């Protein structure tokens, strides 16, 4: 067995490409997540622009009907699974260990594995562009559209890509649950955890419980496609509505998986830039927990028009109205946090305020949909598209940008330019509202979703043109952001440890943090530990910051044992990818070649697992 671990010599360096490939450092993995997700954000954005170009005027000819369906499906799938989720994961990675005063996550190699599996799944999904065309059944992939007689191989890529992405999300969620439950610095009780840590914990809980439902749902779909079962095929007695049940049973907790991290970020940004503690900390935590539980009890509001019956609809309408309560509570708490604060109008706060305003609009149209008669009118119109873009773009993306502006200096050591950041904000806010605001009007005017073209007589041309204009404005704001990003990497203002005079532990250490994060693990005495520490010291300049000095000493953490880099996570991820690829070969070529590829991938994965488990977490001297 020892041979297996000797096949690949343990990597030791932190530099160069191999340093990144084999890294198990949570900060680096966070950067990998962030950069990859942002690239997919641009891909999904270009897809959105194509859709908008097609719809800019009546009888558009930019895309064919088939291409429109494919691009629409990939836009939705990409933005949800390859942008908002991994971008949130980037913040979990970079920030969580720093916030709870830990040196890394509980399972650093599992963490690297999560990232590489994420990349594998994303590439698998996008390989469909090269082979047989991308999926075209929408991000929700309703049966029967996804059944064999009605679809091409793109659906196989979609199912297997999402299965692989699910493994990544679950592995990451396991890891962060254990990290948050088990690795808090001494004194950091649950009710002293920063809000972002709380929201990450609830998100991870939702991931761990909701994803298995989707896994099974998609497995059954795969069996229908590969083995000719009839789970969702009425021909054999199956019920297509079962797919809807499973998809939304996953899909609604997923909505909160997408928004809770952004809520956590905003709950960190607002107190920092108001120079006040978060108003009603406990209530915000409890409402987060209530949202997590209620998020499980509302899924059928996606299916009001399916015909589940008046009682079912009434129950789910009530739970949906209920979930507005904890959400509203949070909004009032954020506003009360700002009230009377010494507000510092910096770029991160702009985005956080944008989040609150846009999320209120999206939340209000959400409450409208909770009413069954109203929803029956809105179902499948652009009003719904407006609603979920106000919560997912106006909510999640604005919140995530607040996080990017807020923590960029911690990761890189330099500040993003504040003025350019505000320009980015205004362009994005205006573009966003021009794009998605008119969708409310069009929806009420009866324009259906998912149509690839419309005749002039419908009278939808004007607002559609405005929307397309707005979409390009969002694109322009992204160029401004990219310019700011690359400019600030080179010549941004030096950040120092604590550029925002902030409250939580990550600001007590240098930017960028040393690989071991904390030279000595801090002891926490209150809810905003770093703020408290600074309050104690006001007037008396004491250089010690959370146990590490202001100036980074290169050799300070010499005695600290950090987990060593490892090849095995990427090997196992590769094996998994090949296994999924084998099933694709099976689906489109034949059983034998598919089996060979799957077994080959399985072998790689098994070798990887053994190498991984026989390799000590850190290549310290005691292990030889």
């Amino acid at each position, binding site marked *: *067995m*020892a041979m297996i671990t000797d096949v690949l010599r343990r990597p030791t360096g932190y530099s160069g490409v191999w340093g990144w490939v084999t890294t198990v450092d949570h900060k680096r993995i966070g950067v990998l997540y962030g950069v990859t997700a942002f690239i997919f954000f641009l891909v999904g954005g270009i897809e959105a622009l194509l859709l908008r170009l097609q719809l800019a005027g009546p009888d558009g000819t930019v895309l064919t009907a088939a291409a429109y369906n494919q691009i629409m499906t990939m836009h939705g799938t990409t933005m949800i699974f390859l942008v908002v989720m991994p971008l949130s994961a980037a913040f979990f990675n970079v920030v969580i260990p720093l916030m709870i005063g830990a040196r890394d996550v*509980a*399972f650093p*190699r*599992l963490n690297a*594995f999560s990232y590489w599996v994420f990349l594998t799944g994303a590439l698998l999904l996008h390989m469909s562009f090269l082979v047989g065309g991308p999926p075209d059944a929408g991000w929700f992939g309703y049966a029967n559209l996804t059944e064999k007689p009605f679809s091409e191989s793109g659906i196989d890529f979609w199912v297997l890509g999402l299965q692989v992405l699910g*493994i990544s999300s*679950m*592995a990451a969620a*396991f*890891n962060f*649950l*254990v990290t948050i*439950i*088990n*690795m*808090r610095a001494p004194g*950091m009780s649950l009710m002293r955890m920063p809000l972002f840590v709380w929201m990450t914990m609830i998100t991870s809980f939702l991931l*761990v*419980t*909701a*994803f*298995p*439902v989707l*896994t*099974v*749902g998609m*497995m*059954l779909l795969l*069996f229908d496609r590969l*083995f*000719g*079962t*009839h*789970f969702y095929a009425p021909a*054999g*007695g*199956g*019920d297509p509505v*079962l797919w809807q049940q*499973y998809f939304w049973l996953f899909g609604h907790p997923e909505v909160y998986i997408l928004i809770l991290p952004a809520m956590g970020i905003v709950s960190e940004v607002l107190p920092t830039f108001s120079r006040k503690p978060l108003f009603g900390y406990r209530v915000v935590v409890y409402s987060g927990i209530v949202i997590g539980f209620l998020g499980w009890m509302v899924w059928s509001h996606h299916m009001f028009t399916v015909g589940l019956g008046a009682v079912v609809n009434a129950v789910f309408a009530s739970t949906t109205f209920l979930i507005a309560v904890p959400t509203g509570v949070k909004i009032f708490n954020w506003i009360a946090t700002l009230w009377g604060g010494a507000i510092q109008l910096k770029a991160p706060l702009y985005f956080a305020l944008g989040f609150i305003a846009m999320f209120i609009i999206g939340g209000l149209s959400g409450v409208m949909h909770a009413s069954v008669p109203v929803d029956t009118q809105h179902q499948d119109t652009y009003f719904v598209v407006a609603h979920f873009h106000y919560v997912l773009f106006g909510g999640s993306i604005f919140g995530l940008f607040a996080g990017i502006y807020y923590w960029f200096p911690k990761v890189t050591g330099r500040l993003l330019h504040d003025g350019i950041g505000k320009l980015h904000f205004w362009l994005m806010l205006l573009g966003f509202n021009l794009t998605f605001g008119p969708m409310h009007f069009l929806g009420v005017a009866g324009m259906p979703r998912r149509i690839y073209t419309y005749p002039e007589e419908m009278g939808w041309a004007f607002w559609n043109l405005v929307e397309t204009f707005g979409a390009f404005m969002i694109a322009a704001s992204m160029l401004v952001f990219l310019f700011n990003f690359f400019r600030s990497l080179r010549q941004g203002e030096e950040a120092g440890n604590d550029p925002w005079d902030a409250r939580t532990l990550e600001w007590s250490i240098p930017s960028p943090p040393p690989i071991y994060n904390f030279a000595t693990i801090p002891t926490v005495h209150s809810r905003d530990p770093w703020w408290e520490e600074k309050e104690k010291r006001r007037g008396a300049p004491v250089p010690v910051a959370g146990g590490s000095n202001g100036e980074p000493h290169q050799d300070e953490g010499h005695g600290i044992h950090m987990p060593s880099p490892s090849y095995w996570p990427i090997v*196992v991820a590769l094996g998994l990818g090949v296994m999924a690829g084998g099933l694709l070969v099976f689906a489109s070529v034949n059983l034998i070649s598919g089996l060979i590829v799957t077994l080959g991938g399985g072998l790689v994965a098994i070798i990887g*697992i*053994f190498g*991984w*488990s*026989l*390799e*000590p*977490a850190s290549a310290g001297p005691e*292990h030889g």
Partner: protein
Amino acid sequence: MQQAGALGHTPEVEHTTTGLNHRKLLMWVFLASDCLFFGTLIATYLLYRGKSTVGPYPHEVFDIPLTSYSAFLLLMSSLTMVLALAAVQRGNAKWGRIWLLATALLGCHFLVNQGWEFSHFVTEGLTPRVNLFGATFFTLTGFHGAHVTLGVFWLTAVVVISLLRPATMSAKNSLNVELVGLYWHFVDIVWIIIFTVVYLLQPAPPLHG
């Protein structure tokens, strides 16, 4: 993947917030997640129970005495698993290995029975394709069988590795055995539910049948 970390090296004594070991906590979280996985599969079986439009129907193919024997095997394997952990915690690695192998063998016996049952059903005309009962039955019991198979491999790996690196089965490192035990007991409990729901609570035979 999470079980992978359980096989290897000497865990360092680590301070944790809850006092629970990281790997043990991970295992519990994984099992919680697996509950939802099996929950969805069992729900699928129940939703489609009695909805098959053509046979074979459950009462035509099930062999309750054989399956009861299989259930007995798995229950006994939980007993040997407990004995294995107890032996290792006492520092008796030899009996630890013996009981672990006994557990793996009982698991193998269960799998052989399941293989025999599956092939017997197929000759009776029940396949995943033929009706909803076949589809839901093979999917649910098949995934359970896959869990048992993984467990057998894991048990064997723990024994083999303990022969190469005896320290992995010392009383101090009994967690290596405890983790596979948690997994094994969970898979057994799932079988009790499947046995009850699928085999014992059969739907009434269709009237026209």
